[in-house]
């Protein structure tokens, strides 16, 4: 019978059976898939030691195993999956918790996009790579290229810039070593060609996930919340903009473009409360046009220019104290987190029905 072999992560080369490792669980996620035998739950994540980091898949996993703990793991094996070596745990694998600490070489904690925060800038993320855009730039006299994407997981979206490495748009990728930063109040991810990219066979369901306001943390996009609008800002309503620079004009002309004609626009800011917390929201014409029933023709009609009071009343009666669903992108400023909405709609009976199914799930 083959005896188990003790190996450091960096010493694992190729597919091997019956190995023991002493490693730290760096990230731990759970997924359910449908197999021929019915639903199957497995765990996956990253483990690491002083020599390196490796992804793992666990078909069987003790519930006591936790992230950031160090274990002596015996009877595991490695296999190549999509040309990348992974370590596998099954029902023979044994985990012995160790009390020692371990310095891991290169650790990037996994985050769902909604949980990204600037306290942890180098991260592992997963998501569907969408909206490719290529741009060239010069650095030290040399032409370089950057690929821009929107990364979307089941919780949120975030812009991603990949310097020098083209990703496969339309595929679900796991990116280890992306760097998180903030620009103009919004989060974004950057990655160099050294970041590790692994494509995973996951079909991201195109279903809307309604978030509880209390769980919103970072300035990420693609967020949907619901709730009652409990108040609307005094300065909401009709605004006048410069047709050249689009900035709000409080005077009779734009100070930078005095010759440019002015145009009417609408803007509002309000507070939404969903019972878990409340959130400040702002909205412009695109988000408001349907719900407030205000169209471009109404705003641009030279025969009957829009009336300030009328516009404010239209917006107020459409929003204030109603239950609404709001989609948008979160932004951070010195007042905290707020939502720039892209779409506002009324709560429908279908949405209430789908929320009711959550009660069933939760009470089991």
């Amino acid at each position, binding site marked *: 019978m083959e005896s188990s072999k003790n190996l450091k992560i960096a010493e694992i080369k190729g597919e091997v059976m019956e190995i023991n490792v002493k490693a730290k669980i760096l990230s731990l996620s759970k997924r359910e898939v449908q197999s021929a035998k019915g639903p199957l739950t497995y765990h996956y994540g990253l483990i690491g030691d002083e020599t390196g980091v490796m992804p793992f898949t666990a078909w069987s996993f003790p519930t006591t195993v936790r992230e950031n703990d160090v274990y002596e793991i015996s009877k595991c094996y490695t296999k190549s999956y999509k040309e990348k070596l992974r370590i596998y745990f099954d029902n023979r694998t044994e985990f012995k918790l160790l009390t020692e600490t371990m310095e891991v070489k290169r650790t990037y904690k996994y985050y769902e996009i909604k949980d990204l925060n600037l306290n942890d800038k180098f991260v592992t993320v997963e998501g569907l790579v969408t909206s490719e855009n290529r741009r060239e730039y010069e650095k030290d006299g040399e032409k370089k290229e950057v690929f821009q994407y929107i990364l979307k997981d089941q919780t949120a979206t975030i812009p991603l810039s990949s310097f020098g490495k083209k990703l496969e748009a339309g595929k679900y990728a796991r990116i280890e070593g992306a760097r998180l930063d903030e620009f103009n109040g919004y989060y974004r991810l950057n990655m160099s060609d050294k970041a590790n990219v692994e494509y995973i066979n996951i079909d991201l369901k195109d279903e809307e996930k309604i978030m*509880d306001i*209390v769980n919103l943390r970072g300035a990420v996009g693609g967020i949907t919340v619901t*709730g009652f609008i*409990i108040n609307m800002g005094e300065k909401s309503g009709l605004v006048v903009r410069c047709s050249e620079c689009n900035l709000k004009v409080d005077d009779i002309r734009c100070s930078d473009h005095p010759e440019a004609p002015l145009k009417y626009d609408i803007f509002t800011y309000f507070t939404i409360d969903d*019972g878990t917390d*409340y959130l400040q929201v702002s909205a412009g014409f695109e988000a408001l046009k349907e719900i407030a029933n205000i169209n471009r023709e109404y705003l641009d009609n030279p025969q009957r220019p829009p009336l300030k009071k009328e516009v404010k009343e239209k917006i107020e009666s459409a929003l204030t*104290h109603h239950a609404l669903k709001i989609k948008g992108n979160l932004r951070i400023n010195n007042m905290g987190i707020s939502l720039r909405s892209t779409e506002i709609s009324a709560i429908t009976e279908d949405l209430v029905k789908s*929320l*009711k199914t959550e*009660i069933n799930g939760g009470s089991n």
Partner: protein
Amino acid sequence: MIEKKREPARWIFAKELRDTSLTIMEGDDEARKEYFITPAGSFGRRILFCGKITQKKEENEMTKMTVADHTGAFYVTFFSKEFNQNTKIQIERVNENDEVMIVGRTTYFKTNEGKMYININPETVRNISETDTEYWKVRCALSLNSRLAAIREIRKSQDIDDKHLGDLGFTQDEARGCIKASELYEGYNMGQLEEIIAGMSVYQFSDTAIKLREKVMDIIRENNPFGGITYEQILEKLSKEGVEPRQLDETLNLLGTDGEIFEAEKRKFKAI
């Protein structure tokens, strides 16, 4: 300047608020504030609720309203002052049988026997649609369900702290409120709150319950002028037709879920 954080409005059913018999004091000296704490771990000084106005009375500068959801009644008292004329206009616009959403501050009155009554001082009153009310009911149920789950977890072991609850996915407020409520309402029976959740989940009512619906509704409606009718009295009236308790239970759940009746007192029902 960083804006002072607004006191959050808690979304709770009338039944949960009615079962609330304790308050807690928080803050230092002058900033000390009194918060209600419910047996299911919700705490605050402001609530948001929806329901039907079943009574509205105006006397001089005071307006009293009773607003019922499918679990009971909220009591609202408004005193007209110089600073709250916007709210006064909103209150003037609503009438009995209107479906409304109200945000208000809670005030407390304790009798010599120690019984506590909670009154709501409204800040916002507005007519809403039935769908909006349904939405509020479902979100309320989700919140209650989550807190009941936290309390079940706490009752498993005394060592459970807010960090442990946080690891299980409960929010900071849920963890804090449920730990406190578990200490303060040690013997409280969560059964009736759990029944509200059960009544709201997607459930296919039996043909018997659907057939009995109108009959039970008529019995309850007839007894509204007498302050409602008890469960036992309804069952007695239906016993000649061979109606069993479980069939009546289901029918009452159906009427409660549809917002047709509420529990005026323990096991005593009134039509909304």
